């Protein structure tokens, strides 16, 4: 009977919302602004939904990454992340003061620090607790934890600066129990990695009920919906309540001078019937599944960026609309966009459930779309990381890369790309003035990918990439370009279906790259193993190039020939004479032997189309499997070869050189002259400046 009741309880907990609530938290926390500490207690409700008996629990104590210079995070990062440097002595840490089970057992003394990734005994970002009684399959355990968190000076996602706080990774958070067959697991074990410089997070879904007490002058924003606001007049604090189901984390921010603006995303007004019908048809789903829901958008902006509030809302609306239409409606009621202040840029460009941080600069020119880019990208993580909750420690390209691909689509569609770089001279927009072309996200992604096209495997544990640049290029741009290539191979419509299918199938779940590959082959109806094995799970460099192109006029053959049973010899002199006569004869139809050699420079093998155009307008197309290192085509034509193009549709964005994919017989004199004139001009200007100063 007890077992039955427990099972029912587990069932009801697990299926309370849209996701399986494996790890739910009730937290009460108070911010002490003077000491920059948060004193809190949490009650974790954890459901063992595996068939395993679990005798220990593992928790992340992420904030201990900022405890000292010996932590794994610090040794890997050298105290800087994304260009932001840790300065001063405001370290961050978290201490578990007490840990008790619902049974009353105090397990505080059973806590020990573990270092599953690098055996760094100085790292204190993961703890393990041996339970007095194992958690059986289907059972639920409740753990009450008292903790104190000291916020560090903000430089890597979380922390404070003056009276600004961005509070993320701040409470003891349970790891993910992976039973055999779950993701890549072969046996039941905790997936609870240390906090690395180049890694983000992984957690189960659950419910978060959080009560935050902060100084009353603070303006607050947090994950989820606000449920409560009580002023504590005696100590000039205010307690806010927030509630959110079906999420994997909880973050919040406070600052007294935030400008807080709310707007509604009204789904009916934002989308047209035509758009709904189109997406439904494209996805092969009922229109009802495509329709979006209303969302309250909250923007917390710095006063000096007030003029950019509408831009932020515009980008958030664009993201809500397109992510929703393409992959499925945003299921939460709120989205909060935070603009961190000057000096706290390290907190910007980060994603948490229903809560994102963007970032901008003072007087950002309208043509520079950095604000829109970061807003759309961070919002995109609601879909790739939060709803489809891949393991960011182990497969960062599966959230950052998919999100880069999606962001690029939206940015290029809505804004025409990132546009201008924000280069100003005393407030004047230099980019505009020099008439430089806007930059599309697609070309920017490819440009960044080319900086490190195959130095690392695309998919690696995030701390195992060669360096932070390799982590960045592989996690973001290389995966973006890989997916763009995949889209060009399977076609736009198929890719749209593929992404939607992958998203909806794994919404509120924890898929892997292998799951994505399976969905891709299933939806496209093609065997895409060759693609995934080389470009997803392998590390092949793709580079086709035109080796040699010649067109030689066929001349009179020389030597001994059999004709009508007798042998005749055409001498060199005879042949020359015949050739001269032919050259003078305007009616003579010349013949050319055209030769085209295509080389495969990279180690990636991919079927490729080759188009050969002749000067008489005729066209030859060839399909090459790319298996051997090169291929040669010969043609006998009445005309010379005019141009050769490998992959003329530019399907393979992964090809590291477009320049060598094309050959034209005509020397590009216009382009060379234009380029040369420009280079000369800029160097002359430089010389004149040097002459002026010397």
């Amino acid at each position, binding site marked *: 009977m007890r077992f039955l009741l427990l099972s029912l309880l587990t069932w009801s907990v697990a299926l309370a919302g849209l996701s399986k609530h494996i790890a739910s938290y009730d937290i009460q926390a108070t911010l002490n602004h003077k000491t920059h500490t948060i004193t809190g207690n949490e009650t974790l409700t954890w459901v063992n939904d595996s068939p395993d008996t679990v005798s220990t629990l593992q928790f992340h104590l992420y904030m201990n990454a900022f405890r000292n210079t010996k932590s794994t995070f610090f040794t890997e990062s050298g105290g800087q992340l994304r260009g932001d440097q840790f300065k001063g002595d405001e370290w961050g840490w978290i201490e578990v003061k007490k840990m008790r089970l619902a049974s009353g057992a105090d397990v505080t003394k059973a806590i020990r620090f573990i270092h599953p990734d690098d055996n760094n005994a100085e790292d204190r970002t993961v703890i393990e607790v041996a339970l007095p009684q194992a958690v059986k399959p289907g059972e639920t355990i409740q753990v009450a934890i008292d903790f104190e968190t000291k916020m560090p000076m903000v430089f890597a996602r979380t922390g404070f*600066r*003056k*009276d*600004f706080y961005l509070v993320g990774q701040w409470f003891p958070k349970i790891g993910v129990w992976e039973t055999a067959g779950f993701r890549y697991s072969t046996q039941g074990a905790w997936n609870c990695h240390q906090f690395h410089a180049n890694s983000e997070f992984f957690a189960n879904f659950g419910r978060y009920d959080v009560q935050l007490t902060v100084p009353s002058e603070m303006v607050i924003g947090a994950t989820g919906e606000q449920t409560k606001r009580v002023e504590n007049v005696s100590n000039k604090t205010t307690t806010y309540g927030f509630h959110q189901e079906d999420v994997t984390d909880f973050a919040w921010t406070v600052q007294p001078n935030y400008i807080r603006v709310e707007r509604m995303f009204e789904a009916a007004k934002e989308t047209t019937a035509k758009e709904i019908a189109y997406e439904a048809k494209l996805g092969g789903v009922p229109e009802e599944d495509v329709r979006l829901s209303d969302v309250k958008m909250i923007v917390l902006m*710095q*006063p*000096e960026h007030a003029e950019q509030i509408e831009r932020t809302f515009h980008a958030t609306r664009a993201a809500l609309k397109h992510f929703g239409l393409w992959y499925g409606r945003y299921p939460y009621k709120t989205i909060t966009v935070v603009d961190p*202040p*000057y*000096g*706290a840029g390290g907190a910007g460009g980060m994603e948490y459930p229903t809560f994102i941080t963007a970032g901008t600069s*003072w*007087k950002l020119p309208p043509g520079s779309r950095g604000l829109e880019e970061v807003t759309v990208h961070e919002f995109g993580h609601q879909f790739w990381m939060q709803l489809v909750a891949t393991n960011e420690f182990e497969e960062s390209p599966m959230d950052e890369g998919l999100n880069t691909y999606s962001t690029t689509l939206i940015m290029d569609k809505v804004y025409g790309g990132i546009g201008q770089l924000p280069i100003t001279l*005393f407030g004047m927009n230099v980019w505009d003035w020099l*008439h*430089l*072309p806007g*930059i599309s996200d697609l*070309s*920017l992604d*490819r*440009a*960044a990918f*080319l*900086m490190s*096209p195959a130095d690392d495997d695309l998919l690696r544990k995030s701390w195992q990439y060669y360096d932070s640049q390799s982590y960045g290029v592989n996690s973001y741009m290389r995966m973006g370009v890989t997916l763009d290539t995949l889209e060009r191979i399977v076609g736009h419509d198929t890719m749209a279906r593929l992404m939607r299918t992958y998203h909806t199938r794994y919404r509120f779940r924890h898929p892997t790259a292998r799951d994505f590959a399976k969905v891709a082959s299933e939806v496209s109806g093609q065997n895409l193993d060759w693609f995934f094995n080389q470009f997803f799970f392998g590390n092949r460099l793709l580079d086709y190039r035109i080796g040699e192109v010649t067109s030689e006029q066929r001349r009179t053959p020389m030597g001994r020939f059999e004709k009508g049973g007798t042998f005749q010899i055409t001498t060199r002199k005879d042949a020359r004479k015949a050739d001269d006569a032919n050259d003078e004869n305007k009616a003579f139809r010349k013949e050319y032997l055209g030769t085209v050699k295509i080389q495969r420079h990279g180690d990636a093998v991919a079927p490729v189309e080759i188009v050969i155009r002749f000067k008489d307008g005729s066209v030859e197309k060839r399909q090459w499997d790319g298996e051997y290192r090169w291929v040669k085509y010969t043609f006998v034509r009445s005309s010379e070869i005019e141009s050769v*193009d490998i992959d003329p549709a530019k399907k393979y964005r992964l090809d*590291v*050189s*477009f*320049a*060598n*994919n*094309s*050959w*034209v017989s005509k*020397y*590009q004199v*216009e*382009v*060379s*002259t*234009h*380029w*040369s*004139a*420009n*280079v*000369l*001009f800029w*160097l*002359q*200007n430089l*010389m*004149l400046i*040097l*002459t*002026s*100063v*010397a």
Partner: protein
Amino acid sequence: MTITQAISNAARRANGRKRMIVLYWFTQMMVAALAALPLLGIAVPMLAHSGWAPELLKQFDVTFITEAMQARPGVGGAAFSAYPLIIFLTMTSGVFLAGGAVKLMVQDATVYSPREFWSGCGEYFWRFFRLMLYSLLLYAIANALAGSVKKVADKMWGDGLESAPMVMAGWVSNALLILLCGLVSTAMDYAKVRLVRDESRKSLRACLGSIWLVLRNPRVMGAWLILAVFWVLFTMLYQPVANNIPAVKMPLILVLALWQQLYILARVWLRFVSWGTAAELDPELRPAPLPPEEFVPVLSTGATEDYAI
């Protein structure tokens, strides 16, 4: 003499030496062409026969730059590492050409001839070269002074959560840097004029004397400011026209190239006017050296002739 009169006289001097300006411009272009070779050596062979050329060479396309670096890492690296040397060589060639230019701008009566120009280049090269080395130190000091403004602002602002004051401090710092560079540049013009006019070989003395002269006579910076305004005006005229030349066909590309060279020629002319202005103002600002004492013969006792002193 007012500043505008000095500039106007200098412009007349420059206009009277058109052939020299053209020679200067041509030589400068040749040196620039030499310096451009490493860049062109990467881009042109890669793209001269590629159908992608128009797309990839669109202005300074970011994709092309990384593609070129990926395709030819060795060549690209070599080209970039060659650039400090190229900058040094272009600076040196600028110093060399300045010798001839300043000589002919300073000497009123000299009739221009290529021979005079080149002889001036050779004659004053080492003096001007030493001057350039001293000026580098002065620019470093200017940079440090301007940078300190930003540092002070940064320190004063502390943990401030707004960027606007720091951005404005950056503007002030940049403006100060430009002004100080203008001051050093102006002083170096006067130093060159002094070296030529005095037929002196003492570059350090000329450098320090000219800095002192510019500091004592801040109105010479007015001349620098007026010439800077001219430069801005020329640029504002050049850029919109250049932006609107659709340089895709050869005739229009040549029009653009011609327009670019006209702009360069205008800048060369401004450089000459700048030297000319220094030549005009220098005698007025710098006290003329005392005339040598006249010889007074000592008369023997009993002389009968009178000498008027």
